[in-house]
């Protein structure tokens, strides 16, 4: 029923059972952390999703690794503690039932716990905020008025249109043609303008580290910079109806020259069809009479075209053939 005399010795003497338990647990946590942390950084990091095809993807990968490294000592400590408790403080079966020591609180332990968890949380917050702001929104949809923008002079705008149940892409700087295949130039900042014609979708270009909801009548802008060529999987990440699961397609990041020739070729080939499309707009609204393919461009001027890439009015020669002006989006029409 009661604690033994030994249990009640809570002072700092050498035979204090508290100290013995602490020492062992700290040792386990220390050794575990020393083993796990380098493993995470040197071995696991490079395999972390979603890869390094863009700056946003690489940022996601780095962030996920750092968070894992921050979390690992906590996980090790908690698991070690519970395992230790279950083994060492297990009540022997069949033995008389006695109570443990009546320890109701320990200010030092409680204060240390509060300090450590607060430090971890604040560290995660500062790190996450830095990683959000510096790489221009980390590939997430920033809405029609993005506040974290790239300073590059060459930003390729690509409009992503979600509709039940497919993705299409319009290239406003190439006359506003529309395709079902996403093609992007390598080593280029991309501004995805994501919108929807019907319900909410979510544009998830997995390898690009980009995700932005497609809301009807909303221009949701997300930035990233491509840095590796390769295939891209695009999926809808927001339930949008019966064929949501089948709403995926693939895209490619290709060299700048390949992209340019593809874009010019497609612009020319698609020109007759582009004329039938509603004029390019950041968003579209359903048309009651079915004119313009059933949609008409929203008349609301969206600031997104003017609020980022201020330097984009510079010479276009940085990216052969890619028209980088954000003022002249209608110029292709």
């Amino acid at each position, binding site marked *: 029923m009661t604690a033994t005399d030994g249990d009640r010795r809570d002072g700092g003497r050498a035979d204090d059972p508290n100290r013995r338990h602490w020492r062992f647990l700290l040792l386990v946590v220390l050794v575990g952390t020393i083993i796990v942390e380098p493993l995470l950084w040197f071995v696991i990091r490079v395999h972390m999703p979603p890869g390094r095809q863009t700056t946003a993807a690489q940022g*996601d990968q780095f962030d996920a690794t750092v968070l894992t490294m921050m979390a690992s000592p906590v996980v090790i400590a908690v698991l070690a503690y519970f395992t230790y*408790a279950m083994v060492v*403080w297990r009540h022997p079966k*069949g033995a008389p039932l006695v109570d*443990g020591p009546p320890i109701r609180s320990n200010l030092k332990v409680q204060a240390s*716990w509060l300090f450590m968890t607060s430090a971890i949380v604040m560290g995660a*917050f500062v790190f996450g905020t830095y990683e959000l702001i510096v790489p221009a929104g980390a590939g997430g949809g920033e809405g029609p008025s993005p506040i974290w923008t790239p300073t590059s002079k060459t930003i390729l705008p690509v409009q992503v249109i979600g509709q039940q149940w497919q993705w299409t892409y319009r290239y406003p700087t190439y006359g506003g043609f529309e395709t079902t295949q996403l093609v992007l130039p390598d080593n280029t900042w991309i501004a995805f303008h994501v919108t929807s014609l019907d319900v909410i979708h*979510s544009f998830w270009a997995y390898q690009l580290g980009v995700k932005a909801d497609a809301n009807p009548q909303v221009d949701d802008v997300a930035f990233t910079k491509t840095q590796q060529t390769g295939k891209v999987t695009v999926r809808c990440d927001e339930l949008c109806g019966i064929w949501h699961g089948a709403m995926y397609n693939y895209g490619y990041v290709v060299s700048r020259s390949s992209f340019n020739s593809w874009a010019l070729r497609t612009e020319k080939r698609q020109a007759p069809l582009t004329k039938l499309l509603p004029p390019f707009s950041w968003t579209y*609204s359903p048309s009651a009479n079915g004119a313009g393919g059933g949609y008409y461009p929203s008349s609301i001027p969206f600031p997104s075209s003017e609020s980022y890439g201020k330097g984009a009015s510079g010479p276009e020669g940085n990216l052969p053939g890619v028209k980088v002006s954000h003022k002249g989006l209608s110029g292709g029409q």
Partner: protein
Amino acid sequence: MAMTEEARAGTGQHGRITARERQRNPWLGQSVITGFAGAAIGYLLGHLFGNIIASNYAVVKASGVNNVSICLGLALGTLGWLAGLGAFNYAVAKILGYEPAKEEETTGWQRYFKMTLDHKVVGLQYLIAVLGFFFTAGLFAEAFRTELLSPYSHFIGPDVYLQLVSEHGTMMMMMATSLVVGPFGNYLVPLMIGARGMAFPRLEATSLWLFVAGYMVILTAPVYGGFNTGWTAYAPLQTEARGGMDSYLIGFGVVGLGMILNGFNQIVTITNLRAPGMRWTRLPIFVWAMLTTGFLLTLATPVLFVGAYLGVLDRTAQTSFYVNAHGGSSYLWENLFWFFGHPEVYIMALPGFGLVGEMLTVFSRKPLFAYKVAAAGMIGVALLSFFVWQHHLFQSGINPDMRPLFMLDTELISIPTGFIYLVGMGTLWRGRIRFTLPMMFSLAMYFNFLIGGITGVYLSDVPVNVTVHGSFFVLAHFHYTIMGGLVFAFFGAVYYYMPRVTGHMLNETLGKIHFWMMFVFFNLTFFPLLIVGFLGMPRRVFEYAPRLQGLNAFATVADYLLGLSFVVFVANFIWSMWIDPKPAPHNPWQSRGIEWQLPDPVPFHNFDRLPLILSDPYHYGEEDPLPVADFRGGGALAALAEAGVAPFDAYAGRPEIAHPASHISDPGREV
């Protein structure tokens, strides 16, 4: 402080049955049979009104679906259900100037099919109801996991798949909000605080039968074509969905109303009906959990109710609150939904923390470590939970400038949540840990919730959220917190409290089979799904990348076995309660909790005299601990004072002063 029984006049709990009344056929009064009749009449009337009102609407003629008649049918059907059960009898009698019929103590199994004002019966009714929700929704999960065995071959196809996913999610969320507050909150809170019942027994019973009505309403969805929006039902998909969407909106409204009533009742009961001496610092930690959950239920659920109401208007009266094209905003529903939805996560988490806190102290024979920190943590979680909802909308395009703030809030909430670990670990420190079934479930909860909590940090971080948001990672994360946390705590509490509630122990061998199957296969189901999500599989898809088939198939098979673990539980329940019932010894776990000191079975009034609370129930390990309560309402204390014995000394080492059954912690007891 404590409300007198007279103040609760009209509860009818003070009546004793007479011999003549005892002979009355229990089915002659109002019961679920009249409830069903009322529901049928209400539904037909509602449907008729809907047809009269809206059959000429252009949209009804064009679509052939009359949402007005569906909504009115379900709403009036629910009212009819309550009327049939007798929920309005008292109010109607009072309004008409009649003396309401006396509501007497009832006995026999028929009372479980009636509207009763006995909180213990309501608790057990809630238990069966939440299990009904849980197993029904669980069966849906088995079906749609079968669909995911293959990325291309289809077992049920996309339409049925999405309907099942949506029904599963909605029903589980409805169920989880009441999983602990319903059965254990209603049963235990009055016992733990020394009260004779809940403050508002009629509201208590009404919340239960609203919960049951919600079960029936949500299951009408397939009749109207189902709904394929998931449990989040984002508009405008919600607005264009088939008639089953009306079942979702009305169902959430009905269950939400019950949640508000239940939460409100918990707050008032705990605030006003505490027995003398039951200070805030003596409240069992489970009661703190119920109090904070009560506030969340009362403050957050009305937002869901209003959101659902606006959704019903969009679908019936052709308003456009959520339709962007007509001047509304799809963000409105997202904000309303998650303003409720995130506090709801803690409505589901806090009760589990409270239950586990109770069980840890008993099975480690230690006082609850850092009691005040535990209570402060629950309050902190409850407060912060209202400031984090937009982390569900990080990629939505709304308020990018607010993202650091919501990231901070979300990460801050892990500090008070972490207190639960501090409390748990401190309680175990040098304890005498007994691996009983409740303790095994409690320890498993800490393991599961650790994974759930850590994965939550990834979701709160905006950059990493880009990859994991909306994927199977999120799905696995919240299953780790809700199922791994709340449901494990719930089953631990079922094993722990069944001897108190029913007088029978659940079979330990079957219980251990249940535990190990549930623990192992739960982790084998959901850990692979964390990986699947990280590798790029969105939620709610019926087709996925072939490279992910191995992990998906593995998770599906594990899920079948997880489902089988609940068959073992049901078999155990039936076996232990009816086939081979073993009477439980009094206070079989040697707990100091007041609820365990009461006689078996618990008397109808709980306490013949309101007890005088003398200490909190966690004085384990102390020499000559103060008894937890004087069950003679202070009479024993007064008698000793008259004899010249100082009150504190009098109680020290004299547990017989309290209820005879309060003698605990027998050092000679073999376990």
